[in-house]
């Protein structure tokens, strides 16, 4: 008990030194918390962006559709199946689509395009399609009209209010042909979507493809996106082998890999950050040992056991490191929340490039609790490991040489 008391007194004997050590740890914690929450936040935002472009977090198809994406692999939409999926607590919304390729044509120009039948209101809940409208108005359920992506409209030299001709092959070899009113133009960030997609109400698409009552996929949005895999496998279990349930990670493996590659490079950056933190803390410890060399030599000389001395120093460093960590976490919480609320904005060319691809040009932070705790713990462990250095010094201490001025 007296050891702890003495450690406490020692800490405040040289207030500046303790504060400097604490400050080193304090800033280390803030830095690493912000770095990792930014990383996490940026990737979450990227995923949110990409997923809300088109794919949704989870899709349900007929078994085998993904390998052969043709209309003949569609399935009958049923309220019972939808209910089964919605039973999962993590699923917040569901919408159905009928997708296939067809030729679209204006007066003289013809292009291939993905023709997607959607449920206008529900689709908007998941992929925010309405926000992408740049011209005209949004679809209603019973319209016999289409929304055209901007790139496609430019290539075909069409605008809202014109008529477009679609021709292709429908369900079970039927001929699909029709004329449609263009109700609006959509602008997508992804060039892929912007250059070759066309949306129409589900009923119109089913009529066009002669695929009455059929859909090719259900698109789901989730409440908690971290439980992606668990949710997908529980839906897979309820629906049985007739359906395939795919997460966005399976649908867009390239994005998944990009995140993986990027986060491994972030690991190096974080490693360097930790090394910097090590040196910061180590520097203060080094100074402390030099300053207190005489004092320790004297303590040993008047008969203090080295083990007691070591424990004393350990208690001192645990106090300082712990206090620094706690203060750091406390200070970083409002900071991270602020950056989450008012994210860092990119400017200039980079921002334009980001926006062109439909990404928000911001760096938001993630406010996950585990992040603060993890980073705090990492710095704590670093601090404690480094306080092994004073221990080592004490073991090697020779009272006489230490006291020589």
């Amino acid at each position, binding site marked *: 008990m007296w050891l702890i008391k003495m450690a406490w007194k020692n800490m405040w004997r040289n207030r500046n030194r303790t504060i400097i050590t604490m400050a080193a740890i304090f800033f280390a914690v803030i830095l690493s918390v912000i770095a990792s929450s930014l990383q996490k936040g940026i990737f979450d935002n990227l995923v949110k962006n990409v997923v809300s472009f088109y794919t949704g977090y989870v899709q349900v198809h007929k078994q085998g559709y993904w390998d052969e994406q043709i209309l*003949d692999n569609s399935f009958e939409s049923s309220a019972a199946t939808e209910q089964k999926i919605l039973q999962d607590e993590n699923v917040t919304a569901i919408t159905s689509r009928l997708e296939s390729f067809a030729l679209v044509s204006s007066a003289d120009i013809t292009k291939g395009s993905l023709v997607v039948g959607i449920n206008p209101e529900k689709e908007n809940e998941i992929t925010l399609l309405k926000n992408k409208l740049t011209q005209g108005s949004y679809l209603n359920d019973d319209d016999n009209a289409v929304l055209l992506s901007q790139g496609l409209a430019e290539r075909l030299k069409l605008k809202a209010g014109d008529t477009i001709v679609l021709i292709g092959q429908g369900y*079970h070899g039927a001929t699909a042909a029709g004329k449609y009113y263009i109700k609006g133009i959509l602008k997508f960030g992804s060039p892929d979507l912007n250059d070759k997609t066309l949306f129409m109400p589900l009923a119109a698409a089913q009529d066009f493809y*002669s695929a009455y009552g059929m859909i090719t996929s259900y698109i789901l949005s989730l409440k908690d996106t971290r439980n992606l895999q668990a949710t997908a496998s529980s839906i897979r279990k309820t629906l049985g082998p007739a359906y395939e349930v795919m997460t966005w990670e399976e649908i867009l493996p390239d994005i998944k890999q990009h995140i993986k590659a990027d986060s491994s490079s972030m690991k190096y950056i974080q490693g360097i950050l930790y090394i910097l933190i090590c040196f910061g803390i180590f520097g203060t410890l080094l100074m402390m040992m030099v300053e207190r060399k005489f004092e320790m030599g004297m303590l040993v000389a008047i008969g203090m056991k080295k083990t007691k001395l070591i424990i004393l120093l350990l208690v001192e460093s645990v106090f300082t490191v712990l206090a620094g960590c706690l203060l750091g976490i406390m200070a970083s919480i409002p900071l991270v929340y602020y950056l989450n609320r008012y994210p860092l904005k990119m400017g200039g060319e980079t921002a334009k490039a980001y926006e062109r691809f439909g990404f928000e040009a911001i760096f938001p932070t993630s406010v996950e609790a585990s992040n603060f705790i993890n980073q705090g713990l990492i710095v704590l462990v670093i601090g404690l490991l480094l306080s092994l250095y004073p221990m080592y010094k004490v073991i090697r201490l020779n009272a006489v040489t230490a006291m020589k001025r």
Partner: protein
Amino acid sequence: MRHIILIISICFSNTLFAQTAKEIVQKADDKMRGNTMQAELIIKTIRPTWTREMQCRTWMKGNTLAMIQIISPAKDKGIAFLKRKKEVWNWMPALERTIKLPPSMMSQSWMGTDFTNDDLVKESSVVEDYDHSIIGDTTIDKRDCFIIQMIPKPQAAVVWGKVIVCIDKKDFLELHSRFYDEDGELINTMNSYDVKMMHDRIIPTRFEMIPADKKGQKTEMIYKNIQYNKPIDNNFFTIEKLKTLS
């Protein structure tokens, strides 16, 4: 003396035989086509999990002029195709447009069947563009048939490497054909059934086309009625007529 007669008769019969191979094919072809032909037929597309039925009407004159109009299903009613020599136009009433099929679409499926657009256009004549030889006899449905091998002439625009046809000896009916590519691989098999009296002649009225590489897939054509040699004016085969057919 007897030997000489024998040799002469053998030679003679050989030349006679070589001619007959071509003649047999010619007779069978003439019989099926006539000078002009108008027909109503049902086309069934059969797939492992579904089937689809179409009814259409056709007009044909010689090798070069043809018109096909879809009567049912209701959604496709009025869709029509016109063939003039090597070109095909497609009238889509839903679009109120004629589309000239580009060469790139020729190898694609016609109306979702196992026939390609190219099958509509091919101008090649089974008589003129092949060298024929009889390679054996067989019996199909209790009918004696010649087995005739047809090898395309070098200059002919034919996609096949070899065609084997079985033609009935008595009525000159093409009962079975096999189409091979240049590597000798079987591509399509065509069988004919339901030999019946149609208009003025006996012909098979049900044909099935079976692609060799797709299991459980075939297309059936069933002729409901045929009229031969009813004169059709050349002006009938025009794009204007295509739109106004009903």
